[in-house]
C-alpha cells in the first residue's frame, strides 16, 4: 500500500442550471489568449447532446482512453509505444478545428466607421483562425438547451448506445446539464500518450499538468484523452489543459469554476488512494466493474492503519485531516451518491457527479403524480428506463444498478426531508430502506442542500504541508543538550557525535517535563536553568538569580 492524496471534485448535477458562469470565468482566467480561442477548460454540455468537441464520446472514432490487450494488460486505445513512435509524423485521430468550432470575432469597427446610408451597419463575424469573414455554424454549446432540435441530440453517442425502443422519444423525456473539466485521472491516457513525457501528475495533490517547457507539440495527448480535455494551442504549438487552478488551490482557495458557481454545486476535497492498486483497478476485465474497482482504490482516512501508513508515505497530517472532513470523500465513499464520468475509458477519473434526480421528478410531475412522494419516485426510477439507462451509459458503463441505487437514495432523502420540513413525523424506515441511519440522512441532506463555503471546499494549503516538512529541518547547536529537559546529545562516538535531536522531539520532551514536574524547577537541575514561561512571578526559583557566594546557587 502506498497512500497518496489527491484533490478531487464532485458536481451535483441536480443543481446545475446551465448558466455557463463557470465556463466564462474559467475562460477569462485561463484561455483568453491567442491560440486558445477555441479552448474551454470548463464547458457545460446539455445532455442529451453531442458535447464539445462534437461527439467526443465516440471512441470508435477518436480512440481515446485505454483498452485491454489480449493478455489483459492496459494499452492506450490509440496504440502502444511502438505504434505511436511510427505514427509520429501525422495524427489522423486529432480532432480538427471544425470538430471543436472555428472561433470568431465581429468586425465591430464597421459599426462606427460605416458611411452614412439607409441601412444599419452590421458587424460581420470574422474567423479568428484565418481572419476571413465566415458563417457561424457551430460552437462549443451550439446545441445548448437542446437547441437545433432532436436531429442534433440524436447524434449523441450515448443516445446511440441505448436500445432503439427506448430511444424513440427521449427528447421529450428529459434534459440536464453536464459541466466538464479535466478529470485529473489516476490513470490518465494523455500522459501515457505523451512522447516527450511532458505531462505529469503532481505527487502532492494529484493535479495533472503539462510542462510547457518539455512539451514538443506532438499532439498525441489530445488523441489519448477520451474526454478531449487537453487542447493544442495553435499559436505556441504546445498542449494546454485545465490546471485545477493550482495557484489558487495551493493557497486553499477553490478553483475559479467552483468559486463562481451560481448553483453551488461543486465540492472540492482531498481523497486518499492507494497508488499501488491503481493499475490493477484500471485493468479489471468487465467495464461495469470499474466503478466498484475505483471505489476500492480509495482509502478511508478514518482508518488508523491508513493514517499511519499515510504519515509514513509522506502525506502531510494537514492533508489527512482534510481528507477526514472532505465532502468529496463523503459523497463518493460514505454515502456513495457520486459516480465517475465514463469509467469505461479506464482512466479512473477524479471528477465525480451526483446524477440528477430531476428528470425522474419532472416526468412524474408531468404525468400528474406527486413527484416528491417516495413510493411514486421509487416506482418511477424502476419504470422510467430512459433517464436511468442514459445516466448509466454516462456514469457506470451501462450498469443501471448503481445509478438506480443512487437515485433511490436521493429520492428517499427528498421524501424524508419533506416530512421533516412539513412537521410530519420523520420516518426512519425511509432512511433504513436505502441503508442509511437517520443521522446519516441528515448529514447527507446538509451536505447536498445547505453546505456552506467551508463545507463545500475543504482544501489544505501547500504551505501547511511545507511548514510541517520544514519543522524537522531546523537544528539546535550540536552537543548543546538541546532545549530544556532534553537528554544531552550523545552519539556512538561520545559527546556531540551523531545527529542532533529533532526540534519536535525536543519540544515533546520539554513539554512533558513541564507538565509532569510539580516544582517550578527541578531541584536536581544543577545547571540552574529556569523556564521563564512557567514562572508565575511568585518567589524566586532556584537558579533564577546567581548565588551570592558565586557558585550559582
Amino acid at each position, binding site marked *: 500500500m502506498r497512500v497518496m492524496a489527491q484533490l478531487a471534485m464532485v458536481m451535483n448535477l441536480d443543481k446545475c442550471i446551465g448558466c455557463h458562469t463557470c465556463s466564462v470565468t474559467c475562460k477569462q482566467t485561463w484561455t483568453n489568449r491567442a491560440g486558445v480561442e477555441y479552448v474551454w477548460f470548463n464547458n457545460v454540455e446539455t445532455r442529451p447532446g453531442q458535447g464539445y468537441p462534437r461527439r467526443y464520446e465516440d471512441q470508435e472514432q477518436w480512440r481515446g482512453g485505454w483498452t485491454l490487450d489480449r493478455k489483459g494488460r492496459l494499452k492506450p486505445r490509440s496504440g502502444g509505444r511502438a505504434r505511436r513512435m511510427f505514427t509520429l509524423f*501525422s495524427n489522423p485521430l486529432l480532432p480538427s478545428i471544425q470538430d471543436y468550432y472555428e472561433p470568431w470575432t465581429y468586425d465591430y469597427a464597421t459599426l462606427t466607421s460605416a458611411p452614412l446610408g439607409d441601412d444599419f451597419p452590421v458587424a460581420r463575424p470574422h474567423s479568428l483562425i484565418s481572419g476571413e469573414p465566415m458563417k457561424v455554424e457551430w460552437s462549443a454549446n451550439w446545441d445548448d438547451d437542446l437547441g437545433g432540435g432532436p436531429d442534433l441530440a440524436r447524434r449523441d453517442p450515448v443516445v446511440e448506445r441505448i436500445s432503439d425502443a427506448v430511444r424513440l422519444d427521449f427528447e421529450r423525456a428529459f434534459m440536464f446539464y453536464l459541466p466538464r473539466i479535466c478529470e485529473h485521472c489516476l490513470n490518465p491516457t494523455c500522459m501515457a500518450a505523451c512522447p516527450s513525457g511532458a505531462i505529469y501528475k503532481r505527487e502532492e495533490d494529484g493535479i495533472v499538468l503539462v510542462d510547457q517547457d518539455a512539451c*514538443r507539440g506532438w499532439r498525441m495527448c489530445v488523441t489519448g484523452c477520451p474526454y478531449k480535455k487537453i487542447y493544442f494551442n495553435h499559436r505556441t504549438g504546445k498542449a494546454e489543459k485545465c490546471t485545477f487552478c493550482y495557484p489558487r488551490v495551493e493557497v486553499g482557495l477553490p478553483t475559479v469554476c467552483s468559486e463562481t458557481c451560481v448553483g453551488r454545486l461543486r465540492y472540492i476535497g482531498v481523497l486518499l488512494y492507494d497508488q499501488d492498486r491503481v493499475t490493477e483497478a484500471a485493468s479489471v476485465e468487465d467495464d461495469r466493474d470499474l466503478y466498484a474497482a475505483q471505489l476500492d482504490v480509495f482509502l478511508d482516512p478514518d482508518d488508523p492503519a491508513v493514517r499511519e501508513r499515510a504519515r509514513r508515505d509522506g502525506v502531510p497530517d494537514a492533508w489527512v485531516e482534510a481528507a477526514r472532513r472532505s465532502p468529496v470523500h463523503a459523497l463518493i465513499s460514505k454515502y456513495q451518491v457520486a459516480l465517475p464520468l465514463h469509467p469505461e475509458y479506464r482512466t479512473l477519473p477524479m471528477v465525480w457527479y451526483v446524477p440528477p434526480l430531476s428528470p425522474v421528478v419532472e416526468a412524474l410531475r408531468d404525468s400528474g403524480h406527486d413527484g416528491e412522494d417516495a413510493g411514486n419516485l421509487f416506482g418511477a426510477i424502476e419504470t422510467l428506463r430512459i433517464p436511468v439507462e442514459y445516466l448509466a451509459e454516462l456514469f457506470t458503463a451501462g450498469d443501471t444498478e448503481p445509478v438506480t441505487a443512487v437515485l433511490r437514495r436521493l429520492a428517499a432523502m427528498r421524501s424524508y426531508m419533506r416530512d421533516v420540513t412539513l412537521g410530519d413525523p420523520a420516518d426512519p424506515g425511509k432512511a433504513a430502506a436505502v441503508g442509511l441511519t437517520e443521522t446519516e440522512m441528515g448529514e447527507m441532506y446538509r451536505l447536498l442542500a445547505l453546505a456552506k463555503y467551508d463545507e463545500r471546499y475543504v482544501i489544505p494549503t501547500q504551505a501547511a504541508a511545507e511548514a510541517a516538512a520544514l519543522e524537522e529541518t531546523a537544528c539546535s547547536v550540536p552537543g548543546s543538550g538541546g532545549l530544556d529537559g532534553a537528554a544531552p546529545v550523545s552519539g556512538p562516538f561520545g559527546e556531540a557525535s551523531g545527529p542532533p535531536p529533532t526540534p519536535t522531539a525536543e519540544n515533546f520532551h520539554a513539554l512533558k517535563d513541564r507538565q509532569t514536574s510539580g516544582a517550578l524547577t527541578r531541584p536536581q537541575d544543577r545547571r540552574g536553568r529556569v523556564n521563564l514561561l512557567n514562572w508565575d512571578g511568585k518567589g524566586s526559583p532556584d537558579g533564577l538569580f546567581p548565588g551570592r557566594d558565586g557558585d550559582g546557587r
Partner: protein
Amino acid sequence: MSLLLWVAFPYVALASLVGGTVWRYRYDRFGWTTRSSELYEKRLLRVASPLFHYGLLFVIGGHALGLLIPEQWTSLVGSETTYHAVSLYAGTAAGLAAGAGLVLLVYRRRRTGPVFAATTRNDKVMYLLLGGALLLGIGVTTIENGLLGGYDYRQTVSPWFRGIFLLDPRPELMEGAPLLYRFHVVLGFALIALFPFTRLIHAFAVPVKYPFRPYIVYRRRTGTAPATRAARRGWEPVSRD
C-alpha cells in the same frame, strides 16, 4: 576561397549548430516545438507529412552511409557497382519521396489560409534552403550518378567530410568535385548553420525515451524550473528596469 568554403564555413556551421542548440535548450525550451498546423488542415498533411519525414530519414541514412563509412569498408561487403546501384536507386527513391512530400507540404502551406497565416519569414527562408538542398541532392543523384554515368564522390567528398570531424580538413579534395556537388554541400551546411534557429529544431526532440518510460509520470511540485538560471556566486548587478 577554397579555404573559406571548404574549411571555415563548415566549422562555422557546425559551431552554430552546436552553440545554437545549446542556447535554445537553455533559454528557449518553450519555443522548441513542431509548431504543428494539423489542427487547421489534416487531409493533405496525412499523406504529405509521413512521406516527407520518412523520405528524409532515409536520405539522412543514405548520407551517413555514403559520407561516414569509408569506401574500403563497403568494398569488404560488396563491389563498387553494387554500392553504386544501391546509392542510385535507393537514394533517388528516398529523395523523390522527401521531395514530393515537401512539394505537397509547401502547396498545403500556401493554399490553406490559416496555415499560410501561421507561416513566419523564418519558415520561408528555411523552406527555400531545405528545398534547394533537396533539389540539388536529387540532382547530383540522378544527373551526376545516373545520367552522366556515375561520379565516385567517395574519393573526394566523403574523405573531405570526414576530415572536418577528424580535425584534418583537406579543401583540395573538394576542388575536383563537380559543381553540382559543391553547391549541394554549401547549401547543406547553410541549412546546418540555420538548423537550431528554425523550426527544424524539433528534429532534436525525437522522443527516444518514450518506449522506455512508464506510462504514468509523477513529479514533485518543487524543483528548479527549467530555463531559469541559478543564482551566481557573489554580487550581481542590480537590474534597472
